[in-house]
């Protein structure tokens, strides 16, 4: 890969970051934008994940997993004068492949599955699960334990296994730490 042609454009300026020293971030992850990106301890960022803080700051809690091709952060310039609301992802959240998260808040232990899309300003409660290809509209507020599945059907999950799920995410992070070479220095 070393003989790759270099782009004539100067590299995009790095966004200001506050990264915990225990995170795992792959070299091919991309952090872009101008506002602050904060990432808590033991979080894993897969290669080709995109975090864009061009329009609003991003805060990611601890023990989260952000998979490849997912896009975190506000994607479009806000239309009115007001500044876009920051994107906050709480602890233990799993964002799977290709998901788009523009939410104001994603509650603890939530799972956002493959190619799901969370609109701007939406608020997800704790331990929500958004199924593959499902959407949450802009500004929508979901109560805790909501599950969205199929063609946008909803239910409340009261199985009470959220503690086990959080433990599983922690175990998964430990495994990914061994598998994904981390390169924090590139992003600081």
């Amino acid at each position, binding site marked *: 890969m070393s003989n790759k042609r270099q782009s004539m454009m100067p590299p995009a300026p790095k966004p200001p970051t506050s990264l915990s020293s225990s995170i795992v971030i792959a070299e091919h992850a991309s952090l872009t934008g101008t506002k602050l990106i904060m990432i808590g301890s033991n979080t894993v960022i897969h290669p080709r994940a995109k975090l864009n803080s061009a329009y609003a700051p991003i805060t990611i809690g601890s023990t989260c997993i952000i998979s490849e*091709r997912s896009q975190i952060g506000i994607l479009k310039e806000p239309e009115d004068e007001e500044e876009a609301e920051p994107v906050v992802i709480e602890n233990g959240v799993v964002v799977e492949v290709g998901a788009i998260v523009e939410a104001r808040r994603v509650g603890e232990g939530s799972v956002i599955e493959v190619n799901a899309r969370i609109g701007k300003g939406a608020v997800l409660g704790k331990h929500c699960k958004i199924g593959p*290809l499902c959407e949450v509209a802009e500004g929508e507020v979901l109560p805790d334990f909501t599950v969205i599945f199929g063609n946008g059907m909803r239910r409340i999950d009261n199985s009470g296994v959220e503690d086990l799920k959080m433990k*599983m995410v922690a175990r998964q992070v430990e495994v990914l730490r061994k598998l994904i070479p981390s390169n924090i220095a590139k992003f600081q």
Partner: protein
Amino acid sequence: MSKKPVKGEYIETDTGNKVSRRSQIIGTTNIILGGKTVIQAEVIIRGDLLRTYTSSNPGEKQGNPVAVAIGRYCFFSRGCELRPPGKLYKGQFSHYPLKIADHVFIGPGSIIEAALIGSHVNIGANCVVGKFAIIKDYVRILDGTVVPPNMVIPSFSIVAGRPGRVVGEIAEGEVDGMDLREVYREVRN
């Protein structure tokens, strides 16, 4: 003008695989390609997600680790992704190998986390195949299907919907069209 010869889109390997220069293959040492497989641009293959669970049986041979095994005449369209599935087993989290047999077509933008895909399987565009799904031989999965995790799809099924359900059967006469040799030959630089 540059004097360098224009490089083609695909790199052809000794065994006849055509791999796009713009594919994103991670962990190449853990991926087996059976030969004559086409990998288009922007395809992601996660060979780095290896099995970390070690079986307690010491007699088991420790060969080369394999994360993704692919047979012959497979075709991976633009922007699809192959990702070994992971689960918690006996208190340990581990990924497990993703095995794909021969003549498997995967449409653009589909994300595959299956455990096993049989021969002559056709997966449409923008599908999601859940973790540890098992797809047997001669199966057609229509565009935009979400195959739920752990689903086992029997041979000769047509699957569609969100979540995916078996909606029909493949008649014996249709089987001939699922061979990918011709498709492979048509891919040129």
